[in-house]
């Protein structure tokens, strides 16, 4: 029996031609995207382009809207206005079936791995293959071992997620994210909570896998040091807007106040140390008056 990947074009749902990925289009394009929860705006006119084959970092302080951008690209959220195109397809306009079809071309690494806790490492990586392909079990086994070998964890195939360290879990999740050789891999805080060795390993894996598999990577992070080593381009997001962008060299040389605060890790600056509050003096002496 020859292995087949489902659904092949002949079995794809009607209207597939209208949402087939354009090979020449930029991997991801966001134009003037706004988004908010109820009355609270999160993104205020985000415009960015993520070219094919590149690693682009989206950086910013916690709560600046970075992860929301990933969720919009993934179609988990719909923008209030603006356009989001992935491979030439307008993500918000896709019906659920088309969106699920597009997501088969995605890989996503969640902040804490999001491994299925009732499955072993092997089963976690085999999961998307079993869900979306009709590959024979022997081939799935070989593919899983190849993915694990790529992240250096072939020997951990039999372990359960609870037996893994944070760095190992992140690497297993990375192997799962590339299980179906995706077009686009999104990383949500891949460096958070890792020790320096694991941090370097994960960073290098992102770069190596991106180049070896010719994929496009979007890395949401606030780890400047590690990002500058591996990415091709950076966007800085603050309070829902892009406040700076550039290559790692440009960022290092930048005199922009926000970039400098971020790169130097300064506690105060364009991103204030204090949460907005009434005058300290007024509040302390309120009772005296």
């Amino acid at each position, binding site marked *: 029996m020859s292995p087949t990947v489902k659904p092949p074009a002949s079995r794809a749902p009607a209207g597939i031609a209208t949402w087939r990925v354009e090979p020449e289009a930029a991997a991801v394009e966001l134009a003037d995207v706004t988004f908010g929860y109820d009355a609270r705006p999160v993104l205020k006119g985000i415009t960015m382009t993520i070219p094919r084959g590149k690693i682009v970092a989206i950086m910013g302080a916690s709560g600046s809207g970075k992860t929301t951008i990933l969720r919009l690209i993934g179609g988990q959220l719909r923008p209030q206005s603006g356009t989001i195109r992935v491979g030439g397809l307008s993500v918000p306009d896709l019906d659920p079936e088309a969106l699920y079809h597009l997501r088969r071309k995605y890989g996503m690494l969640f902040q804490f791995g*999001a491994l*299925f*806790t009732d499955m072993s490492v092997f089963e976690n990586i085999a999961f998307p293959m079993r*869900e979306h392909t009709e590959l024979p079990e022997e081939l799935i086994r070989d593919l899983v071992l190849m993915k694990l070998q790529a992240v250096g964890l072939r020997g951990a195939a039999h372990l359960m997620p609870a037996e893994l360290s944070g760095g190992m879990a992140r690497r297993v999740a990375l192997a799962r994210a590339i299980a179906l050789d995706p077009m686009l891999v999104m990383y949500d805080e891949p460096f958070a909570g890792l020790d320096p060795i694991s941090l370097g390993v994960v960073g290098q894996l992102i770069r190596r896998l991106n180049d070896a598999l010719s994929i496009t990577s979007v890395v949401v992070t606030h780890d400047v040091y590690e990002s500058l080593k591996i990415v091709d381009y950076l966007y800085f997001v603050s309070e829902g807007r892009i406040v700076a962008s550039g290559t790692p060299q440009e960022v290092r040389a930048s005199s922009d106040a926000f970039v400098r605060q971020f790169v130097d890790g300064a506690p105060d600056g364009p991103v204030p140390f204090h949460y907005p509050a009434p005058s300290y003096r007024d509040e302390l002496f309120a009772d005296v008056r």
Partner: protein
Amino acid sequence: MSADVAGALSYWLRRLGGGVTGAIGQLGYSTRFLLAVLWQTPAAFRRIHLTLREVYFAGVLSLVIILMSGLFVGMVLSLQGYETLKRYGADEQLGILVALALVRELGPVIAGLLFASRAGSAITAEIGLMKTTEQLAAMEMMAVNPIARVVAPRFWGGVISMPLLAALFSAFGIFGGYVVGVRLIGIDAGAYWGQMHAGVDFWPDVTNGIIKSFVFGAAVSLIAVFEGFDAKPTAEGVASATTRTVVISSLAILALDFVMTVFMFRGAR
């Protein structure tokens, strides 16, 4: 009317309105959720091993508590029933009393309550934790529908398990009644089984008990999967969703039992 009173009135009216619209919204959301589960059922049944696995977790692993409870309930029922029946010289009717009480009411109701506490809470906690740890989001991003892969098998696992558990509860209860009534008290075994055989009909007694347990299974399973899926993705959110499952399921079982009993046994005897 002073400004303070008007302000307080406005505040309470807003709260009342918010509560009512919130409840209506939740009802609509849960109905849509049920429809989504039913819509995804064929996809879930195509991989029947997922549902069978849930029958094992919700049903087989609940057997100990169900069987032990059934046994003790039957024993107590037999003791209490004997004391009452003896006053009227009808102690040989013990078999029919134990069997009817278990098959019609106590079997489905107590098994349902135990099922809600043991399996329902576990289902809610599991789905809630999957949501908290982004496993459901990961599934969605892998183009796998979590309703079809996670929710529908658990729902149907509960629906299938519950009538079987209720039947076993009743069977063990009847056996417990036999142990106390016949072996300990000394009622004639032939009378115990013979009265039961003559007085309990498959229709309506047994059938209605099965229908009740099926409805309770569907209600508890739906509440459990919905609360898990709708839980706030925090430790506190999962804890309160688990509590809600047990409380709402228990009240739903008792309320549904009353409504069904009214319709099923009205004028039956």
